[in-house]
């Protein structure tokens, strides 16, 4: 940010976007899934699975340094050739679309279960997609600016809600430490998918004003989000005990509902609602943008905005019909997603990096639509 008209993301903004993207919706339910495997050691699992995020961030940012002006869809084609590259591009477009359908569905499910049980799910899904379409259409720069407000709010609300629970937290509930290492690893695998969401950097790097900061942004983002998730997990374990956390659908929501400071400060679950809607918006918009950009680049369109509407319809449709109930989502995310998502977020980037290094491929600017289409620069 050295003058009035920096039209791109700074490294800090990219990092904040990564934090919100990983943290926002994950924090509400993650402790349950991890605790199901690791019991009171859930927080160790979260710590461990941060490694996945760090590795993904490193892979993507290293690739980004080789191809600073290209997204993963574009350099995938550069590295693998036209046919294979198109396949990889399709995989990424589909991945961003699919992960968003899952997030949107979760988004609606929590609002439905936790706050407004009689409202049809379609209403939540429809409204958030329209609003997220606006966000995606406005582009990463605007999203980053909005996130500059939202992330501090999220962290503040999170901090306040956890602080209010100090009187109910029982440190002894975290003992015995590292009881069952296998469980910790299984728990880490269950949460690995969420940390690998840092893959969105692969679509954001061309929008950075300093591409060299991508690695820092990715790794720091994963760490900040990871430690926040760890804090939530620790508190959930301390308040509910390792066994019971595993049985809760939305442990963080349950945490805010149980806050009671001398009977005066109670009923603060609107904190969870605020985090959920604000953070959920950023997360859904970011993936929405990634899906729109990836698909338009795959189709060779000039403007990513032209795919915003069809992508939105697809997300809405798929998120409704894909799952029958909330248990399918959680079982998908903790098991099937490992095999469906991790190869895309970890395996493919690793493969691309190895091939690019071997073949010595580098640089080059893409002719396909860049995120710069998003800027309505008027003057200076």
């Amino acid at each position, binding site marked *: 940010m050295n003058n009035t008209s920096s039209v791109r993301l700074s490294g800090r903004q990219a990092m904040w976007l990564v934090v919100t993207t990983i943290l926002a919706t994950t924090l509400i339910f993650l402790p349950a899934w991890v605790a199901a495997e690791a019991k009171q050691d859930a927080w160790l699992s979260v710590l461990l699975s941060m490694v996945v995020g760090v590795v993904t961030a490193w892979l993507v940012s290293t690739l980004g340094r080789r191809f600073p002006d290209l997204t993963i869809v574009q350099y995938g084609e550069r590295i693998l050739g036209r046919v294979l590259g198109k396949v990889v591009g399709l995989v990424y477009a589909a991945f961003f679309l699919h992960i968003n359908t899952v997030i949107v569905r979760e988004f609606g499910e929590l609002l439905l279960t936790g706050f*407004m049980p009689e409202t049809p799910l379609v209403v939540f899904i429809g409204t958030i997609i329209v609003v997220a379409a606006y966000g995606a259409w406005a582009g990463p720069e605007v999203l980053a600016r909005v996130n500059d407000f939202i992330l501090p709010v999220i962290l503040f609300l999170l901090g306040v809600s956890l602080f209010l629970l100090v009187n109910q937290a029982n440190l*002894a509930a975290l*003992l*015995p430490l590292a009881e069952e290492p296998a469980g910790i690893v299984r728990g880490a695998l269950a949460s690995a998918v969420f940390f690998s969401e840092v893959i969105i950097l692969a679509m954001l790097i061309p929008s950075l004003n300093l591409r060299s900061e991508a690695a820092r942004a990715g790794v720091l983002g994963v760490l900040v989000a990871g430690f926040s998730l760890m804090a939530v997990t620790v508190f959930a374990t301390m308040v509910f*005990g390792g066994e*019971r956390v595993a049985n809760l659908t939305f442990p963080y929501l349950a945490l805010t509902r149980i806050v009671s400071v001398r009977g005066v400060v109670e009923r603060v679950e609107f904190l969870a609602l605020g985090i959920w809607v604000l953070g959920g918006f950023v997360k859904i918009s970011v993936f929405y943008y990634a899906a729109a950009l990836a698909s338009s680049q795959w189709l060779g369109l000039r403007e990513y905005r032209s795919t915003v509407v069809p992508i939105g319809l697809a997300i809405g449709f798929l998120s409704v019909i894909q799952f029958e109930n909330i248990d399918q989502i959680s079982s998908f995310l903790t098991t099937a997603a490992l095999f469906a998502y991790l190869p895309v977020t970890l395996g493919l980037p690793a493969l691309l990096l190895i091939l690019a290094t071997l073949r010595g491929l580098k640089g080059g600017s893409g002719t396909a639509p860049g995120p710069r289409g998003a800027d309505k620069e008027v003057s200076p």
Partner: protein
Amino acid sequence: MTRFRRSIVLAGLVLTLLLLGTSCWNAVELDRRALVMGVGIDKAKEEGKIALTVQIVKPGQLPTPRRAPGPGPPVWVVTSTGYTVFDAVRNFVLQSGRKLFWAHMVVIVISEEVAREGLAPVLDFFDRDAEPRRLSKVIIAKGIAAKEIMKGQHELETIPAAAIRDLVEGFTSVSTAVSVNLNEFLKRMSAGGVEPVAARIEVVAAEEREKAEEKALQSGDDGGMAEDPRLKAPPRFRVTGAAVFKGDRLAGWLNRPETRGYLWTQGKVVSGIVVLKCPQNEKETIGIELIRSEGEIKPRVQEGRVVAEVKVKAEAHVGDVLCPLDLTKPETLRLLEKRMNTVIENEVRAAFRKAQEGLRADIFGVGAALHRSSPGQWKKLKDRWDEVFPEVQVEIKADAKIRRVNLVLKPAQPK
């Protein structure tokens, strides 16, 4: 661009129409909600059915600054039955017309009968549904139907259920009762190596009524009995002692000293009075006010037996002295501290005796403590912990400190 704009406009229009046309799925005006303040759970007369009794606020009867309260009690007590709790809950609509709103419910009173058969199926609704809070107190009614408790009134509070909640929370000033909310109950229920407890409520007024009736019979003045206002008064309740569970089934009760013995081990004695005998005269007494306590259970496995070391630390003031005692001498205070240690140890021992021999329920969390300190040992013992716990050897170490004697050094004595 314009195309996109138009699509957005279209989407906005469709949404607006959608919202306008079918709005307010969840919007319910306050005067269409029935606010439940407390619920009592009994077994219904019909086999296999549950009877719920709820206290619903009548907002029109509440005193407001602008308006005097209407006639009659400010709550409406209704009973409904069903095969499950939720079934019964829904059946309320048949009687109330308004949908019940559970978010402000403060107490769940469960009859002894239901508690003996297991609470897990009964409490699931309150755990699962989004409206009830896990902060509601779990209370077991001893020797009386939960319905009767719900029908009760309180002289000071307008909402009886809130009064019951206050009774439970008031345990801190005596430390001879427990206060357990739904979260704590379920947490202990689902954890290994520790059993839940719950508050116990019983009737006071019923005994008084009996006495009054007896008196009336003795005097032969049966004509004035009906006019006696005390007889018309609703039953009065007392929260004291504790209900002990094994799993989700009620196993038995702790009396007041045993309850405090249990609370010592948990470090939950906040305040309370310890009565000691005077050193010179065993008939006269001294009241010591507790101000702080810590309790810790350290289990270890020694020669194949589990030994639980219970450490209790307490701090206290001298509250009242009924005998001429010179509190300026340090020895006197030391003597009192010693006697206090004995009292604490006796209470803790009594609690353990009841839990180990009578109820065979590990309410102290000895097993959980063992799990924390030596997970390996616990793994071997946890499957037969029910048999191991009654055999646990208890070592109690109490350490009481009397910090101050308040405003008087020696009590005033007639000369």
